[in-house]
């Protein structure tokens, strides 16, 4: 089993390396070179020359890639072209806002979707199940910025209970933090909850047709125990996968939520970076998102391997 996990880890590393090549390569295949792209319309020969020298564009691409990757590995994310500040500093001050949003949303949506999915599976075909199916389908169909705006309209504008902007201050107490973060976290959770819940439900129901569930039912066990003790352990692998997919989707979903609620987070930085053509910043952000994506999927695969007794205890 350890060999399988090790192989999977190596695959993850390889994927990360590939992602870095793609991200770096994407800026290389721009027409002209990076300097021209950065300066855009208002470039002068002089400015181009300065920038090229500053970015070391006269060196071959492979050398610059190695340089860039080496820097990344040591925590040097380069220097922003727009602000002249180290990218690491810019990201460092923002990443916590994004991370807090995502972690809170994950901490709420994952257990909630599991619980709801199992509940729906236990009542499959019943009123509870059908109501949940309708609701979750509707939630999947509606884009998250719309959900965000509706929530904002109800809870912040009409009722005035919660804050419409998610700006927090270090001196805020718990309730002030709650008021500020409740709506963006809820919006983000809604976006991923429905899919995870439906997948949990269908994985468990799928297992329900197997002979060992009938066997367990013929032992006189109640439905609750059939679901939790007999079906769930066998449904874990697909559930892990869909959780990982949704959490990685959440990382991109954050872009919209941060924009709607004015959160000064990482994705806002990325959006700003794109409009300013701040290549080093874009590359660093892309690498961070890519790493999170790869890491989450890696985690899901390793957990699936650990949850499989066939791999844990070979013959």
């Amino acid at each position, binding site marked *: 089993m350890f060999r399988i996990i090790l192989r999977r880890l190596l695959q993850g590393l390889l994927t990360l390396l590939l992602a870095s090549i793609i991200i770096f390569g994407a800026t290389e295949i721009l027409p002209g070179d990076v300097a021209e792209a950065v300066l855009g319309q208002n470039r002068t020969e002089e400015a181009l020359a300065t920038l090229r020298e500053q970015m070391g564009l006269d060196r071959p691409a492979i050398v610059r890639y190695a340089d860039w990757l080496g820097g990344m590995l040591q925590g040097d994310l380069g220097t922003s072209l727009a602000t002249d500040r180290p990218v690491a500093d810019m990201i460092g001050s923002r990443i916590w806002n994004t991370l807090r949003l995502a972690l809170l949303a994950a901490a709420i949506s994952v257990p909630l979707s599991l619980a709801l999915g199992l509940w729906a599976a236990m009542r499959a075909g019943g009123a509870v199940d059908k109501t949940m199916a309708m609701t979750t389908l509707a939630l999947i169909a509606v884009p998250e910025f719309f959900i965000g705006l509706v929530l904002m309209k109800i809870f912040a504008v009409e009722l005035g209970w919660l804050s419409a902007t998610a700006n927090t201050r270090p001196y805020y107490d718990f309730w002030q933090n709650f008021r500020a973060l409740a709506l963006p976290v809820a919006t983000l959770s809604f976006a991923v909850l429905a899919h995870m819940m439906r997948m949990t439900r269908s994985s468990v129901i799928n297992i329900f*047709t*197997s*002979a*060992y569930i*009938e*066997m*367990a*039912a*013929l*032992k*006189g*066990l*109640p439905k609750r*125990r059939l679901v939790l*003790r*007999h079906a769930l*352990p*066998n449904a874990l692998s697909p559930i892990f996968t869909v959780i990982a997919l949704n959490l990685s989707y959440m990382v991109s979903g954050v872009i919209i939520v941060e924009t709607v609620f004015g959160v000064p987070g990482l994705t806002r930085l990325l959006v700003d970076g794109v409009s300013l053509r701040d290549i080093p910043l874009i590359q660093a952000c892309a690498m961070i998102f890519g790493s999170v994506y790869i890491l989450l999927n890696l985690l899901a695969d390793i957990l699936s391997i650990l*949850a499989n*007794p*066939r791999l844990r*205890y070979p*013959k």
Partner: protein
Amino acid sequence: MSDILSIRNLRVEGRPPGGAYVPIVKDVSLSVRKGEVLALIGESGSGKSTISLAAMGFARPGCRIAGGEVWLNGYDIMKLSPRERHALRGDAVSYVAQSAAASFNPALRIGRQVIEAPLWHGAGDAATLTAQATELYRKLDLPNPESVGHRFPHQVSGGQLQRLMAAMAMSCGPDLLILDEPTTALDVTTQIEVLKAFKDIIREQGTAAIYVTHDLAVVAQVADRILVLKDGEMVEEGTTDAILHNPQHDYTRKLMAAVRPAPHLVDHVAARDADVPVLSVQNVTAGYGTVTILSDVSMEVPRASVVGVIGESGCGKSTLARVVAGLTPAREGRIELNGKQVEAELDARPREALRDCQMVFQMADTALNPRQRIRDILGRPLQFYHGMTGRKQADRVAELLDLVDLPASFASRYPAELSGGQKQRVNLARALAADPRIILCDEVTSALDTVVAAGVIELLKSLRDRLGVAYMFISHDLSTVASFADEVVVLYAGRVVEKGPSKAVFQAPWHPYTHLLLASVPEMRQGWLEGVADTAEARAASTGSVQIGAKGCPFANRCAKVITGTCETVAPPVRDLPGGLTIACHLPPEALPA
């Protein structure tokens, strides 16, 4: 009342998805006394499993118990609340399913599953119950009774798992035990030990039991009384002796007539003279990934003859057919069709070689495209191999259907509108459409009921006589092979242990494995089980499990006549015996089982 279970006028209805309820069990009454074993027999669809589940007040999804009374221990369980009914299951009555491999939860340790029911129903604490379970494992002759409960289902063999399921059912000390085809999925050599275990434990605990099966020879070994079912209705009931020896009803007589005698009692087919074989396999080694399934297999199929390939599950029978067809390319060795070598890979073979060698699979329905009409299924090979289209093709489709005894009107039907036996005939017609020289038949009758299977065999025989086509006939059903095949190849763990004319293979002398295999086929004689389970061969065979890729003789670890120090390490010599028989064994010919 001494009846543990008494069912009166039971009616069960089932509903196909989206359809209306139709009766599947009609007005069935039965009773079982303490310590008595009642067998429910009948063909598939006779409602025997449904009745046995209804004895627990259980109906499968899509089914419902529509009427009647089920009295268990003096309670009418249909009148109980669901909670009270749940309390009976796994306590007063327990269930043994057909496939232990599917009925054990793969994610939980065996021991926990075995004691789950009594633990849940409050029959004791985990430590006491585990100790009792260990005692049961010992009684059931399971290896390592102390530690087997800590293992996961995938870590033990199929036969052991089936016995563990018996332990699981017995762990709650039930008054009634329901056994639903508990040995059907097992190989014959494994079946003996499991049957013996069931019988001993039922006798020892004085449990009442319902034994559901389609195998009359098995019934003869375990049942006290027999209830014959057909299409959900009772046909006949009586003691085992009376039903087996003096059946009253026509249907029961028909079932008895379809029972095939044990292979060594069959009048065997003699081999035919032959010139160039239509198929020749020489020293073939093949497998999947890094696993080697077949090692150094050689065999021939003469023109217009039937060569049976026998052996237990996992011995490489199907792999051999796939290698010949090119679906699984051989790693080493030669394959010749009509004396001409063909490529190992399907893609590299010329169309002519493909045409000459066709295959028919075990699962008749999954081999047919459900979205194509029979005329399209048969038309495609006609067009591909013979360029037939339009009128010509339609005429040939009608001819092919006629050849397999199906009406020409079937051409416009979809596979779902056909019965299992009819589907298998269509598969055969599909193979015949190519005008092959040889058809590879992979367990083509195994999924069919006895009577239907007998019809398919008759058809195969007449096609061989009329068209001169040869068959490689793969089957685990030794009686059919004994009566049908001209020559027989016995495979064990991917190697040929014995081959020769049918007459010679099914008569002494035998390879020790062939001997075990033949002795393990159940006979209708009551008391047969006790006799055979006690032999040195059966005991030696139950101690080991099949090992693939052994250095010496693969059967060494299960052989009663093993020569210690030689058999495990040195590959056995291939001996040519009189009558065209070949046996791969270290024993000198005079020491072989006879």
